[in-house]
């Protein structure tokens, strides 16, 4: 069978799309958005139930819907989209054909079947309301686990197609020098994904065998330990992927050059080395593990992965600042930011993602992951407050920004309802910020997560939460509703644009048959770039970003100590 070497050059961006890679990216993104739609409807139902003034669903429905919400959002939406990102970062950015497209389709269909099977177990059978985490010895139907396993195998195939494509690019010399930074970030995500999926297999396969009676017993502590090597690491795939998308966004919108390839790549490398040991975050108040194990693992070995995120948090906006200043927006500390294209939803989404992920998700994550501080937060509303800030405000927001760029480029359709698109990141971002903040607030007051009724359904031994907790739940529900509206706006724009949007016609368009050969040398001569990017031209060229970073640091330090202060007031424990 001949290898398909047909390419299309995007007339707007000059990016080259390999024909099979492009349809794979489209289909992965489309199915991801379908999962987002399903997860979004479930999010609305969850919000309207936890808002006790409404209390929409019955308990059995609520726990079922909450299970489905977690899986469709955290697993299916995000991983489908990530597979699309991997293919984009390899095939498109390296001008290279995708390795083994047919195998990639096998992976895609495995993921689709796995997603359907898992949703079947949750919603059609209705006997698998075990939450996203499915902690043994609470059991689900075997199709619940098998669905996840099939999905994971499909995603693993996607990762190896990505690695294969890197090999093809190198062998056929479709690019010159090192891979782009964004591709490097995608490599990071894919390496972490392989580790993650392996951990998932190690725990989900025995659990599946247990569900059909072939394994007698699953130890609850072992389950939590290994499951979180899958569950938490999968969130680290998201972090790597969305940081790569941040860099891509800065490059696409501003033509921004990384401030330093060395620093940014080293930061990605730190993710690979340390971020995968984060399963301890979830085991800080579990029996049977020592404090030294907990401290080393929860800190990603001396917080080196946190260091990496703090570095990206500076270098992405910093590179934007440098690019903007080069365009003449040079007045004062913040003209570059004031004159940024705030009406461009791709930029707005990514900027909100950086700020939201850093200030809300990042800081709260470190607090939650501190061994002793976890005692006053474990399994409270603080936890979903934290991860909605990382996964939704961080990852989902960044991916949304990416789609605004990809619809005209990849689907060749104009964005429908441009005004709605313009407002969407702000509505969604505001909603999610309010939602996460008040969720963390309620968690600080002890309100539990995954709980149908904090008035305890008439149990005479019940606890009366303070009025502030009830108020915060009301406020977070309002934030959740605003976010649902923002999510709806996103779905309206993207789905309408992709299927019914105005086609962008390119006169004289034709596919090009690419030949093997050596790529052109980089445009800038080596000598010039050696001097050009050094500290000479723009020493402290990112001074505005530096000030913002210091503001972040002050917020971090203050909030960190507030929590220690709070801990010091609770009962002494040994």
């Amino acid at each position, binding site marked *: 069978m001949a290898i398909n070497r047909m390419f299309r050059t995007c007339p707007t961006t000059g990016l080259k799309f390999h024909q099979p890679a492009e349809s794979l990216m489209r289909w992965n993104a489309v199915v991801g958005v379908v999962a987002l739609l399903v997860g979004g409807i479930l999010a609305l139902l969850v919000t309207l139930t936890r808002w006790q003034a409404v209390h929409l669903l019955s308990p059995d429905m609520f726990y079922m819907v909450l299970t489905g919400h977690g899986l469709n959002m955290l697993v299916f939406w995000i991983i489908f989209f990530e597979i699309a990102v991997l293919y984009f970062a390899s095939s498109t950015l390296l001008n290279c054909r995708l390795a083994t497209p047919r195998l990639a389709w096998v992976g895609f269909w495995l993921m689709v079947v796995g997603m359907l099977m898992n949703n079947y177990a949750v919603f059609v059978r209705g006997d698998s309301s075990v939450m996203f985490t499915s902690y043994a010895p609470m059991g689900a139907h075997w199709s619940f686990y098998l669905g996840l396993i099939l999905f994971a195998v499909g995603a693993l195939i996607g990762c190896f197609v990505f690695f294969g494509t890197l090999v093809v690019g190198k062998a056929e010399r479709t690019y010159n020098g090192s891979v782009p930074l964004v591709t490097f970030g995608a490599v990071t995500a894919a390496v972490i994904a392989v580790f993650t999926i392996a951990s998932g297999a190690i725990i989900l396969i025995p659990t599946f065998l247990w569900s059909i009676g072939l394994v007698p017993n699953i130890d609850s502590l072992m389950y939590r330990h290994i499951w979180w090597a899958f569950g938490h690491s999968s969130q680290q795939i998201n972090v790597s992927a969305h940081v790569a998308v941040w860099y891509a966004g800065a490059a696409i919108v501003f033509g921004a050059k990384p401030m330093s390839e060395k620093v940014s790549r080293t930061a990605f490398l730190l993710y690979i080395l340390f971020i995968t040991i984060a399963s301890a975050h979830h085991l800080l108040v579990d029996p049977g593990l020592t404090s030294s194990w907990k401290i080393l693992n929860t800190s990603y070995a001396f917080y080196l992965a946190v260091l990496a995120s703090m570095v990206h948090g500076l270098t992405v906006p910093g590179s934007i600042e440098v690019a903007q200043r080069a365009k003449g927006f040079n007045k004062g500390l913040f003209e570059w930011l004031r004159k940024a294209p705030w009406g461009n939803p791709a930029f707005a989404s990514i900027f909100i993602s950086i700020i939201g992920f850093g200030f809300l998700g990042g800081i709260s994550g470190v607090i939650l992951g501190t061994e002793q501080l976890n005692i006053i937060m474990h399994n*409270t509303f603080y936890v979903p407050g934290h991860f909605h800030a990382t996964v939704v405000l961080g990852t989902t927001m960044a991916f949304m920004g990416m789609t605004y760029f990809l619809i005209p480029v990849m689907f060749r359709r104009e964005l429908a309802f441009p005004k709605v698109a313009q407002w969407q990141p702000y509505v969604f971002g505001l909603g999610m910020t309010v939602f996460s903040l008040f969720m963390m607030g309620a968690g600080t007051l002890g309100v539990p*997560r995954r709980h149908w009724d904090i008035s305890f359904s008439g149990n005479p031994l019940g606890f009366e939460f303070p009025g502030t907790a009830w108020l915060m739940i009301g406020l977070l529900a309002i934030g959740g509703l605003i976010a649902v509206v923002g999510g709806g706006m996103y779905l309206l724009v993207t789905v309408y644009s992709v299927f019914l949007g105005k086609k962008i016609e390119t006169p004289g368009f034709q596919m090009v048959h690419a030949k093997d050969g050596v790529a052109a040398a980089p445009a800038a001569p080596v000598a010039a770039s*050696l001097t050009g990017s050094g500290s000479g031209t723009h020493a402290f060229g990112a001074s505005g970003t530096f000030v913002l970073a210091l503001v972040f640091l002050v917020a971090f330090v203050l909030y960190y100590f507030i929590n220690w202060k709070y801990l010091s007031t609770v009962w002494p*424990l040994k």
Partner: protein
Amino acid sequence: MSAIQPPSNRLWWKEPIERVEITWVLIAFVWCMFLFFMMPYWHVFGKQNLANEAYRNTPEKYTAKVQEMISKYKVREETGLNDVKIPVVKPPAGSDVYLIARLWQWEPILELEEGQTYRLHLMSLDWLHGFSLQPENINIEVHPNYEHILTVQPSKPGTYSIICNEYCGLNHHTMVSKLFVTAKK
């Protein structure tokens, strides 16, 4: 060359790092080290730590120990959901006190004395549960077959609640109990 293109300088690792960047990396690194050493510091100087004392156990043996404590130190009963009677025990200060977590009940109800220390044993008889003491907001994961021991020192008298904050099935939200702390004599 932007981040979506190969670096223009093939020897990018030899490029100098900008001052603003390296300054931030150093500040962040120092802060990360601080974050790390705060945890061992609190183990030495702080008062809220987990000792990580835990043993494997079986539901039968654990229940037997709890029953023994109940029969020795029961002082009265409280009424829970569906008129279930739950024993209240007042064990001596400094002793080992036991709590069972099971679908969907905590048993027994403990009455402790302010300022005294107790070795609190926690274990589940079935699925995972979450020990969440309110309004103190102390949260501990409770596993089946692992007996977890914490040394607690109630610092204020009053009526506290123990809610389950690990999802444990359909009636999870009804799993709640009390804990009494009496004033120092």
